[in-house]
């Protein structure tokens, strides 16, 4: 079959030229890709594939074009010489391109691994960069937080009302907060407690050893009650809590203590217990007094009837008078018991306390004598008139001043003062003596009925009980502070506040009298 070779010729020539053109265009593109990211192995792979294809395209197309030219120009023998070389080069380029292409999967895996590693490196780099750029800020922020934390705990340490104390294992003080100084009776500028032994501040030296034993065994001590020595040689009851801090390996262990001053709480508890005890005794006394008072009244009445019909100076008359005297004495005691028990409502008189004190002092001056006793009076002029049972208040003042006189003995000083506490609505009367004082063991019992340190027959032991009852009946309180050899101070606290209407009513009653 004879056919035209023109289409073959045209397509061969044009196709060969286009192959060269497009292969170079592809090479240019892949070079551009490599330029964008030279580390990308995929682009490198494509570059080698395209390079091989370009080489193939050039060798093949050049061969085809040359063939057509040589054949058409009648130089076929020349082409026959060149042909084996052209075919061999084409084969080599084929194999080259195919070989490189086969590596695609391996290259792809490498690329993914590199991308993954790159991503991780990038993440680490970003983190490092962030840390590097913000290290100063982070350090500053941490330092600020640390300072705030330190400040917070320092404030807790400084403003705590309880003693916070750090000691070595042997009790040597390392650090103590201001409350600790205060509990011991010092100011923090007075003295340094550093390296002083906590053991020396226990009232009982064995207490420290006991604490050490507990801490050694359990690692802590919790709310154990001990007594510490105050600067003024008095004892303070405290609750001790502490725990052992083993600390870092290169640091010796320390004990962190929290010591709570409970002295005031204990005193209040004791006062409450005392008040409860006196209230119970008062209740009992009132019951007994009521039962005895009536028979005594009958005995006294009949005795007085019998006396009336009996001529004086007879033996029977004297016997009846003795009975009358002792019955009256009994009635007086019963009356005192009733006063102590606060069973009777006090009268309401408007009086000035300082005037009442002066009246009592005058009375004692006249009947018992205060010649060798220096009386120092310090009245507060701002103390107003008060609504009190004048007779009973004077009885209280009489009891306290006579007790002071007996305590002073022959010579001494009696200080009487009044004071107004407007903020608390109270008037305070203080009667202080320089007598022998009251022993500590008796302090809790001095308001008990029939308790007396006087010899038998000199006192009934009802004076302070009655005074206590009267003051309590007025809504007040009576306190005592005494030191043996130094004297005693009795403090009467009376409430100031009364409704105006009640004052007006009381005044009217007083004028009518």
């Amino acid at each position, binding site marked *: 079959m*004879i056919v035209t*070779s023109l289409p073959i010729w045209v397509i*061969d020539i044009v196709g*060969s030229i286009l*192959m060269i053109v497009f292969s170079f265009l592809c090479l240019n593109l892949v070079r551009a*890709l490599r330029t964008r990211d030279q580390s990308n192995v995929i682009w490198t792979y494509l570059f080698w594939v395209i390079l091989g294809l370009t080489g193939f395209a050039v060798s093949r197309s050049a061969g085809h074009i040359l063939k057509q030219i040589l054949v058409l120009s009648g130089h076929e023998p020349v082409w026959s010489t060149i042909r084996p070389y052209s075919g061999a080069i084409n084969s080599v380029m*084929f194999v080259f391109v195919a070989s490189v*292409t086969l590596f695609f*999967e391996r290259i792809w895996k490498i690329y993914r691994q590199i991308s993954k590693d790159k991503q991780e490196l990038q993440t680490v780099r970003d983190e490092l960069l962030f840390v590097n750029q913000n290290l100063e800020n982070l350090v500053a922020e941490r330092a600020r937080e640390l300072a705030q934390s330190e400040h917070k705990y320092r404030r807790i340490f400084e403003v705590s009302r309880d003693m916070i104390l750090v000691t070595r294992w042997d009790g040597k003080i390392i650090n103590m907060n201001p409350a600790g100084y205060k509990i011991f009776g010092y100011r923090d500028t007075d003295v340094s407690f550093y390296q002083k032994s906590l053991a020396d501040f226990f009232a009982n030296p064995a207490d420290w050893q006991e604490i050490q034993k507990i801490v050694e065994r359990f690692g802590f001590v919790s709310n154990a009650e001990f007594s510490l020595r105050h600067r003024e040689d008095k004892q303070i009851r405290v609750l001790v809590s502490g725990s052992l801090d083993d600390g870092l390996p290169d640091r010796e262990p320390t004990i962190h203590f929290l010591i709570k001053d409970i002295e005031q709480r204990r005193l209040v508890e004791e006062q409450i217990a005392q008040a409860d005890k006196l209230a119970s005794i008062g209740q009992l006394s009132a019951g007994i007094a009521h039962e005895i008072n009536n028979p005594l009244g009958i005995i006294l009445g009949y005795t007085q009837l019998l006396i009336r019909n009996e001529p004086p100076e007879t033996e029977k008359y004297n016997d009846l008078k003795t009975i009358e005297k002792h019955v009256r004495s009994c009635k007086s005691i019963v009356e005192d018991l009733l006063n102590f028990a606060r069973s009777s409502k006090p009268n309401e008189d408007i009086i000035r306390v300082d005037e009442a004190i002066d009246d009592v002092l005058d009375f004692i001056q006249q009947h018992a004598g205060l010649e060798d006793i220096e009386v120092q009076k310090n009245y507060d002029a701002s103390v107003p008139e008060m609504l009190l049972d004048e007779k009973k208040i004077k009885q209280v003042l009489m009891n306290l001043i006579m007790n002071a006189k007996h305590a002073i003995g022959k010579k001494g000083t009696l200080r009487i003062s009044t004071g107004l506490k407007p903020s608390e609505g109270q008037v305070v009367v203080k009667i202080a003596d320089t007598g022998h004082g009251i022993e500590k063991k008796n302090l809790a019992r001095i308001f008990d009925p029939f308790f007396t340190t006087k010899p038998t027959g000199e006192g009934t032991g009802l004076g302070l009980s009655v005074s206590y009852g009267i003051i309590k009946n007025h809504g007040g309180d009576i306190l005592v502070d005494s030191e043996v050899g130094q004297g005693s101070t009795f403090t009467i606290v009376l409430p100031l506040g009364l409704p105006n209407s009640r004052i007006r009513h009381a005044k009217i009653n007083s004028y009518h009298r």
Partner: protein
Amino acid sequence: MQLQRYLQKIWLIGAIFLITEPAFATQAHNAPEGLYAHQLAHIFFIVSMGVLIYWLRERKLVQAVGWRYIQYAALFFILWNLDAFSVHLMEEQIPVIEVQRINPWEISITAADHSSALTWFYYAAKLDHLLCIPALLFLYFGLRRLLKETDTKTPGVIQP
């Protein structure tokens, strides 16, 4: 003595190279080997392009337009290789086609069994650039797309 020993060694080596007959140890490479090597290269090319298509699809790279074009390029290269392989087979290897140039613009194609279909198939197969040019065009557009996506930093340029 030493000189004598050296002379003996030289004589012995010379005798081995000069006196012995040719052994024809190296294999001769005659004309058909070039054709077979070329045909095997075509097959190798087809296989490698097939493998490339397989991995492009396996790694789901063909979801990206650029790589999809490259896949098409590989497919056309396979077709072109099959075409070229067929022409070489018909022309030189079997051979079932005889071509004679009548004049510069005409040729005589004679099939072995005078089959018209085989003649026209051969004639069409000779237009192999109609397959390899599209292959290069797809390759060009694929690479251009990859470059464009790289420049716009589109995510998933290479990742499936």
